[in-house]
């Protein structure tokens, strides 16, 4: 490449960078379905007080363990006679928040870290990968439980605990991809023409390695909500009687043989969000390489 080529800049370079074209997001059926579903969920979250006939923590002992489709309680009631639909609707707010916040920061931090270490290599790579190795050497849930036990139960601490470990998969994925990409022609070409490392990483590597990590984001959100559920199950999540799907599933567990709906229905709510997020992930994946 000549000096001139340098002046032309990224516009021309995109031509030799095959995957970058895919950055334009096109709506396909999968993505649309996913977005529509999540839209409904978000709507429920916003309009929860309008959509629900009862206070989600109101106890009515005379109405406990009503099965779904009972008069006045479309999804039935729990052991305290609380309306399950009201609880599910209100906890939508909390669970979307858990899914989003516990993935957002780990994704940004982990993704960038993986690209930087994968591309730059050397001491930085060694150092950060050792930190990753140390953290990775602990079973995920154990580390989260240990951190929660130290910080105490509660939502903010949940984000910190999940985030402290949650960035690692993204770092590993983008690093692995970067290792495989860094020797590809267009990267070498960019280096030859004198692009700075930072520029190469952001303009050329990032778009190519981000997709697998992005697919994992939507899985990660579902896993984060499930981790929240497990922590609720261990008494480390939001404190009762706060409605939260994970906590509801955990609470209903002791009545599994008596009132299946107490665990199944919040489980289905989780499923809907899981399906929606996964469809979005798939839709984005289909977009790749258009």
């Amino acid at each position, binding site marked *: 490449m000549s000096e001139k080529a340098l002046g032309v800049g990224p516009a021309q370079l995109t031509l030799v960078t095959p995957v970058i074209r895919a950055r334009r997001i096109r709506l396909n059926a999968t993505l649309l379905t996913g977005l529509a579903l999540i839209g409904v969920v978000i709507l429920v979250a916003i309009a929860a007080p309008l959509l629900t006939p009862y206070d989600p923590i109101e106890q009515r*002992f005379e109405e406990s363990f009503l099965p779904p489709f009972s008069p006045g309680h479309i999804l039935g009631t729990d052991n305290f006679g609380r309306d399950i639909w009201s609880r599910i609707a209100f906890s939508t707010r909390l669970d979307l928040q858990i899914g989003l916040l516990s993935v957002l920061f780990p994704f940004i931090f982990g993704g960038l870290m993986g690209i930087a270490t994968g591309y730059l290599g050397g001491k930085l790579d060694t150092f950060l990968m050792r930190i990753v190795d140390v953290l990775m050497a602990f079973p995920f849930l154990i580390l989260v439980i240990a951190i929660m036990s130290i910080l105490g*139960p509660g939502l903010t601490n949940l984000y910190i605990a999940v985030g402290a470990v949650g960035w690692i998969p993204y770092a590993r994925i983008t690093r692995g991809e970067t290792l495989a990409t860094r020797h590809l022609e267009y990267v070498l070409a960019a280096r030859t023409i004198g692009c700075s490392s930072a520029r190469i990483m952001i303009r050329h590597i990032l778009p190519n390695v981000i997709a697998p990590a992005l697919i994992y984001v939507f899985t990660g959100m579902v896993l984060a909500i499930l981790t929240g559920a497990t922590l609720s199950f261990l*008494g*480390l999540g939001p*404190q*009762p*009687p706060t409605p939260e799907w994970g906590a509801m599933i955990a*609470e209903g567990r002791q009545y599994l043989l*008596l009132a299946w709906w107490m665990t199944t229905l919040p489980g289905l709510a989780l499923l809907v969000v899981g399906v929606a997020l996964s469809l979005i992930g798939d839709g984005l994946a289909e977009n790749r390489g258009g």
Partner: protein
Amino acid sequence: MFAGKTRPVMWAVVAALLVSACTQSGTSTQSPTPGASASAAPQVLRMARNAEPFSPFVPWQIDDNPALFISVNVYDTLLRTTKDGTNVEPGLATKWESTADGLTWTFTLKDGVKFSDGSAMKASDVKASLDMARGGEKSAWKDVYKAIKDITASDDKTVKIVLSQPYAPLLSVLAMFSGGVLPADMAKATDAKDYDNALAWKTKGTGAYYSEGWKKGDPIVLKRNTNYWRSTPSISEVRIEYIPDDNTRVLKLQGGETDVVDFVPFSQIAALNTQPNLKAQTFSIQQTAFIILNTSKPPLNDVKVRQALNYATDKEAIIKNVYFGQAKVMNSPIPQGTYYDKNLVGYPYDLEKAKALMAQSSGAAGFKMDMQVRSGNTNFANTAVILKDAWAKLGVTVDIQTLDTAVVRTNYRAGDFMSTPTAWTNDMNDPTEIVNYAMRGGASPFSYWTRYNSPDLNDKITKADLEQDATKRAALYSEIQKIYSDAAPIASIAYLGATAGWRSNVEGFFIDGLSYYRFEDVKINK
């Protein structure tokens, strides 16, 4: 390459696993309960329990239920608690008498009692064991024996116990599991600093069963003691598995993989009884469930506030929704055992009265109160959820905090809590344990961490221990219950039972008043 080479191997592994799985399932479902066929064949009772023992398996070192439930099947005591848990009956001692001053007690041992290895049990073994229980370096129960000054074995059949002062609960204390009798040399050996606690699981007792050793994680195997001094037990071997999950334990019972399970969730008792081959039951034991109120934290230092909380506690609702009707309303601070006062009024649910009391109190403006719940206990958590709702009607904002037991216990001691749900179970058939431990103030554990301290009450507690006359003792204990109840350092909830479920061919499984069960009277019918 990965796919090409590995897949057939994987398939082979999976196929092998599936084949072995299927053959296994075939053989096992066909094999009937061992012992159900031939009459002479050994009978094995399979039990699934919710927890594993963790204390060293030496009677006076035991401080956890799973260990002591096994202890009563392996080690005998001088006296036994009756099945209903309200009296004592002969155990290793056939008779006993005391001098008029109540200071010297003479026990005559039963003839021909042997340890599981066939050696004879002598008075010197009883002395050595009780000496370890009351004075051993590692004993967890020294306090209950502190009235004993001296123990002598005057001959092989006679044990003499001399007290430093009259001690009314003595016989009940001697019926406690902590006084289990081991051979003298073994009893002494267990107290050595470098004693290997694993050795204690190779037991030598006079009880109906013995163990040849146990490692944590394995099932506990109890073998019938053919030298047992009562009738030889019908079950030749008991295998106790550890299944911590409540649902799983019940499912194993339903699947026919075990014969008896303990701690059946209250919600499942009724459902299990509708199944043709199963039975489930709640047994009455001496247990109370209540909320500890920290009387050193304002406004809980105001007796009116505490009484208001008591009146605002809908005990029936908690019993119905948390314990599924398998509990009784608690009217007195002590369990329904000896000297329990059934006429005490307590705090019947009365919201109006509660509101009136609260209005006159220092908490009238409403206040915030933490309620620390030990994680993993769903009954306590559910109780807290109901109380949060109920006490909100008095203007009290309950902040439920689920914490690890270790944290809760540390907070108890530091006084760093306002309220917490808990339960108490009597270990002996005499109220001396609960009144001394859970009601006496002034010193640790500060009236079970309530920080309540009434010199008048402390005085009466001491008097009741010394009182030899049963009627006068009963009167003293009634007063004690009344004083404590009126002061309300706890919010009373319910008397709980112990639950168990079993296959209907199991006969005679029974949890006694102190929550023990013995396998010696259990049978398996065809």
